């Protein structure tokens, strides 16, 4: 302990957890989670917002508690398809969403519903509105898929460039694992999937990759230090060495997001919730997906060619 400050220690100075021995159980757990995510994806599906399916979403505010039932009934009267009405943030606000209005194009439908609602419910105000036409929403779907694909590819290339190919494949498998589970989370919670969700997924990929790089760095260093030690033990050693950092950083990140998660309001919640989940899952998959893959595959040892092409880490 320090003479300067009563430092909190989340983990003892030296730990000797056998991370690798838990890997088979983790593999089963991950497999089950992925099966669950796939099931939810098939059964429940993703709750795509107007960004991806087109239509209109408007936030309305009312003087008193928002009359959700009557608004729903009114939307049915107006022949608005796939209408959803929910509380938005506080009881005096509601979120009204619909795909289209019978016999009207996207914009005319939005204008029509807005004017009908404001005249039917005195004091109701439309405080925000988004209308996305079918053409644009179709394009956004492809742009989103393309963005995720490009991200994965570039990450693979970067890891391949900085480490060995085995590391890159471990990382990519872990990323697929993370994306599958995050998508599963979106399906299970039925959080609306919007353009921001793609940003959230990309952030999850970025953070998860960050974790993998830190983990690989330490592993690579120890592989050089202990050339005769079995890979399994080197992995355990590396993970124990960086355990303190893993926990402190993960906690910091989650604490940092906590404000946005609880106080950020309904607009920020889906993004931050997905990011918080990503921090969790990214940390887990570094230890229990990426490293086991590397362990199973094996790495080239005492092969100087395997050293990175990029800048060498400084030696003392």
């Amino acid at each position, binding site marked *: 302990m*320090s*003479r*300067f*400050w009563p*430092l*909190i220690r989340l983990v003892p*100075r*030296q730990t000797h957890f056998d991370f690798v021995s838990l890997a088979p159980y983790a593999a089963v757990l991950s497999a089950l989670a992925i099966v669950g995510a796939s099931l939810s994806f098939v059964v429940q599906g993703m709750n795509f917002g107007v960004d991806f399916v087109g239509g209109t979403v408007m936030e309305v505010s009312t003087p008193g508690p928002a009359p959700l039932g009557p608004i729903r009934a009114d939307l049915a009267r107006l022949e608005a398809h796939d209408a959803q009405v929910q509380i938005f943030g506080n009881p005096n606000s509601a979120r009204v969403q619909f795909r289209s209005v019978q016999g009207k194009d996207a*914009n005319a439908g939005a*204008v029509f519903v807005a004017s009908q609602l404001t005249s039917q419910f005195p004091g109701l105000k439309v*405080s*925000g*509105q*988004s*209308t*996305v*036409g079918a*053409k*644009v929403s179709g394009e956004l779907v492809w*742009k989103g898929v393309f*963005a995720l694909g490009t*991200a994965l590819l*570039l990450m693979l290339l*970067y890891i391949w460039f*900085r480490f060995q190919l085995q590391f890159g494949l471990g990382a990519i498998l872990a990323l697929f694992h993370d994306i599958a589970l995050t998508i599963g989370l979106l399906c299970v919670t039925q959080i609306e999937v919007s353009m*921001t969700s*793609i*940003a959230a997924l*990309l952030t999850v*990929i*970025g*953070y998860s*990759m*960050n974790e993998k*790089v*830190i983990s690989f*760095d*330490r592993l690579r260093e120890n592989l050089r230090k202990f050339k005769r030690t079995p890979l399994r033990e080197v992995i355990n050693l590396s993970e124990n*060495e960086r355990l*303190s950092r893993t926990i*402190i*950083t993960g906690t*910091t*990140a989650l*604490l*940092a*997001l*906590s*404000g*946005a998660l609880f*106080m*950020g*309001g309904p*607009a*920020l919640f889906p993004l*931050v919730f997905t*990011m918080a989940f990503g921090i969790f899952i990214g940390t887990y998959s570094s230890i229990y997906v990426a490293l086991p893959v590397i362990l199973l595959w094996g790495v080239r040892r005492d092969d100087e060619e395997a050293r990175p092409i990029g800048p060498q*880490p*400084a030696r*003392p």
Partner: protein
Amino acid sequence: MLALTRWKIILVLGSAIFGLLFTLPNLVPEGVLPSWAPHQRLNLGLDLQGGSYLLLEVDTKALTKERLTNLTEDVRTKLKSAQIDFTELGVQGAVVSVRITDPGQVRAAYGLLNNSLGERLLTGGRDVTVRTGADQHIQTAFVSTASDAAAADAVSRSIEIVRKRIDAMGTKEPSITRQGVDRIVVEAPGESDPEKLRAVIGKTAKLTFQMVDSDVAPQDMAAGRIPPEDQLLASDDGFAPAYVVKRRSVVTGEMLTNASGSTDENNQPAVAFSFNGQGTRRFAEVTTQNIGKPFAIVLDGRVISAPRINSAITGGNGIITGRFTVESAHDLALLLKSGALPAPLNVEEQRTVGAELGADAVRAGAISLAIGAAAIFAFIILAYGLFGIFAAVALVINVSMIVAAMSLTQATLTLPGIAGLILTMAVAVDANVLIYERMRDEANAGRSAMAAADTGYRRALTSIIDANVTTMISALIMFQFGAGPVKGFAWTLSIGVLTSVFTAVLVTQVLIGLWFRIARPKALPIA
């Protein structure tokens, strides 16, 4: 690495001053700072300050259709004036086809059309091709490059006209940009009534003056039996449901030089206009020849009024009466003045955030940021004591540099961007965590305080850079992918990655270096 070189200190001090100086305008009320100080504030996105976003697509199909209709009318007029009889004139796909009744005149008709249709191109030749087909047919079509050029030109002109119209509305700092081939993005901060915007942008405002064909009997009109050179137009004038008018327009909106809201002799709202030279001449000519006959004033294919010509109008000025309110007369004048859109604009995407909703978002964002920062500070100081305070100082400089850079470049801060900022703080702290954990390891391995600190920085640096490159990659992809809020997120994240590597590594290094010099410690406070 801990050696306190002069450039390091200058760099750290300089960046701290930069951050403070350019963040300051965001912290104090406007007008407090002296004139030499920077005054650019954060550029808040539409989701934070309220406003409207419209994605418009120029309807190039309608443009092509209109060009083909005009070509058809040209063929009709040319053949008629050369007294060549024809049948089956019409548009087939992208081709205007006509059958010449007399086989002997096909050659003459071909020559006539080939030499006079369309416009001369800069590259030589004309923008219309004319071919003779089987069975005395002649086919004319636009050269494809000319059609593309017409479409491109229509988009550019549309942007200019949209800009003029929105500027005339008095919206503050609207942004009007081209996207892709045929799309226009309009962003109007503070304009939270999308209907007002759409009313101004949505109208083509194509104005024509066409003679009413009084020779068509009402029963023929009702049965749709109208001569080919005429057209039936619906009317909004309140007198007749529709009029039969000559297809050929006498004057068009392009010949207007000015328009303004006005009143007629009965003190009813009206639109006053004046013609340019060509319009004045044409209008004088037609009104002189047609005294006593009505003509129709047509806006976007609907008759707004059909006054009778009482006397020749030679001055080039006039008023349009109709069923106007003061406001609608003013709006129409505005539209006429800024010119007609070459093609209709379709609204493909529209997003509006009311000012109140924006203010709520700002409040929520600020609270989130404050809680996030407080949590990080508390945790990092608890975990690393004095070094935690150093990391917190670095974090403050980091955030101020991000805010400064965003204010300076006027990059847009959006609500997701605030989440990006929070995440950036966490990732910045991670760099310090990596460094400090390394120091602990090195100290535990038996190195002296100084050596452990020095090695900690040295060893952690590659990991930090590697890890941040991955974040940068995902930010750059987001930037490519997203619009509006997502772009704001990506931008904040990218700036944050750059500044956080700098502050987490260099600022803490200088602080720890200073501390070593002053306190001359025997052990690390985190060991």
